[in-house]
């Protein structure tokens, strides 16, 4: 839980007193942003390239020839093998295969799934909404809950509220996601029968919009509950320690002296300052979001990308594994990039350096 975030409030060095007014405004011009953007975009581009390299390395070089796995259920003649190799382009030199792979990935031509015999791109498009629905809802809830509790927890450090919530958060954080999911299913779906056991919709639901939406929402409750329960504690601790960094700063005394109520001091002054360093941390934690959604989707048989990934392990459907490996990694890298760009706009202090 080490916060490597940017300098908290007050950490910024004071600009020299003799600086002419207006010079600060000029420094904020487009060139500063351009340089900042270029630095981070080029960093992300290098990271993305590394992902492509490593996926090729893992799935073509370490894993070896996919023909054996592709033909494992039936005897094949050497001629058939050769034809299959030619069809998949495996008879060509390695560097050419690599080039084809890179260009293919960049043009969204991800090849066909072994398992479904369909373009992987179509599979992803089909399953993406389910993943976004589940992890999006879960993440928004987790961030809101974690920040809300974390703020109050840090503000009254050592209070009963603080101790209780930190203990609860740690307890849930310590529970393995998949196990919590199984327990939730056992209790709420099996014993109490309140919610469906798994999946995203029931076949018997009428095809109209509202019944479908309600049905999906009904299916969504348990996975989101599980997901949020496991993830929110991380946000709680991030926000709590960020608030702790702000407590005792002079600007809070100023706010108090102005006659603000305690909650106004907290919400109008401490929280905006504490939120800034957490932005990057929240986006950095996006890797954990992906981890959580893979496991949650698998427990609840949620028809998203995560469960597609896990199914592909055992088929084994190597093109799907490879494509999703690239997709998941790329999305976290892009999320971090988005956080860095966002940071420029929300933290006035970063613009001067």
């Amino acid at each position, binding site marked *: 839980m080490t916060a490597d975030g940017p300098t908290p409030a*007050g950490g910024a060095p004071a600009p020299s007193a003799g600086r002419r007014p207006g010079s600060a405004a000029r420094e904020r011009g487009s060139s500063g942003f351009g340089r900042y953007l270029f630095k981070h975009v080029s960093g992300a581009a290098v990271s993305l390239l590394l992902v492509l390299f490593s996926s090729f390395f893992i799935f073509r070089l370490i894993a070896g020839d996919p023909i054996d796995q592709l033909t494992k259920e039936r005897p094949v003649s050497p001629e058939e093998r050769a034809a299959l190799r030619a069809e998949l382009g495996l008879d060509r030199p390695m560097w050419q295969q690599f080039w084809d792979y890179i260009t293919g990935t960049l043009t969204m031509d991800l090849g066909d799934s072994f398992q479904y015999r369909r373009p992987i791109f179509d599979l992803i498009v089909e399953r993406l909404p389910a993943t976004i629905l589940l992890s999006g809802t879960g993440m928004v809830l987790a961030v809101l809950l974690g920040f809300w509790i974390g703020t109050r927890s840090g503000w009254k450090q050592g209070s009963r509220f603080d101790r209780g919530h930190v203990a609860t958060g740690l307890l849930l954080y310590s529970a393995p996601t998949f196990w919590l999911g199984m327990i939730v299913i056992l209790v709420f779906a099996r014993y109490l029968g309140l919610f469906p056991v798994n999946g995203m919709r029931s076949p018997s639901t009428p095809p109209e919009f509202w019944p479908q939406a309600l049905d999906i929402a009904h299916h969504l409750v348990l996975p989101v509950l599980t997901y949020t329960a496991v993830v929110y504690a991380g946000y709680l601790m991030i926000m709590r320690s960020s608030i702790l960094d702000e407590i005792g700063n002079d600007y809070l005394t100023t706010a108090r002296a102005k*006659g603000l109520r305690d909650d106004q001091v907290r919400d109008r002054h401490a929280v905006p300052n504490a939120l800034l360093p957490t932005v990057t941390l929240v986006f950095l934690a996006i890797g954990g979001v992906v981890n959580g959604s893979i496991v949650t989707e698998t427990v609840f048989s949620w028809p998203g990308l995560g469960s597609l990934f896990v199914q592909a392990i055992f088929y084994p459907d190597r093109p799907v594994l490879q494509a999703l490996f690239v997709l998941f990694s790329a999305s976290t890298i892009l999320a971090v990039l988005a956080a860095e760009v966002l940071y420029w706009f929300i933290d006035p202090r970063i613009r001067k350096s």
Partner: protein
Amino acid sequence: MTLLEFRDVHVTYTGSRGRIPAVRGVDLKVEAGTTVGIAGESGCGKSTLAMAVLRLLPKSAEVRGEILLDGEDLLRMGWGRLRAVRWTGASIVFQGAMHSLNAVQRIGRQVAEPMLVHDKDLSPAAAAKRAEGLLERVGLPPSRTRSYPHELSGGQRQRVMIAMALACDPDLIIADEATTALDVMVQAQVLQLISGLVSERGVGMVMISHDLSVLSAVCDTAAVMYAGRIVEQGPAHEVFAQARHPYSAALGAAFPVIGDPAARLRPGGLAGDPPDPARLPEGCSFRPRCAVSVERCGEESPELLRIEGARSSACFVAQEGEPVVIG
């Protein structure tokens, strides 16, 4: 008319080292339209005293005695009444404007904030307009209201603090080392601004500084604090010109007089450190550093007594009418 009155104020911190007395029985009055200076080294309790007025001290501090603002005891006020008095009855210009301003809020909003808190009928637009006026009053162009604190120079930030302190037309302004961090030229500007405001608006002012030249330039009366007590008090120029306590004499001598060759040769400053408030010496707490101490100083602690006119001193030697400076 007495605006602010401290009556036998004690402040004690409770920490890992036990109970530490930071302020030990201070009596002081501030009349409307006058400026009172409080001088002393860092750690003598002067900032603690300032923070005690609006009850801004941390929970570990216990405040005893009475602090009367317009006759009303601040220490026995309910929280609601206290919040209403904060910034309307008394406001503070904090030291270190960089850290006392919210780094991620535009300064216009920070100046307007107390007006909106205390006047529920005021519209945000009207408050912004008034904030602009206040900033203009302290010499900042209206365009600066949209700046963030780090975009301003140190002097500008300090002026923002002053504009902020004026936001709710308080009767009393406390300036806590308001000019310490500034360079000399800016300091002079800010001081001029402050004294102009006092005379123009008729407010009372408490000015806290370790810099005697600042206090003698601005204040009517001055109090010198040492180890949590006032050791000398009187009209500001008299206290600095002719000290009646060896500590204020030493404090005055620590600032060289420019252009006076003798000042260079005079032993300036004071040997040793102020006493650890957790372990104060027996008798007069200044005795270990005092050049003129007598036997009695080690036995009992001198009271602050009037010695002549408006001047008082907590020194047995001065109370006897003897000089407190050797040579």
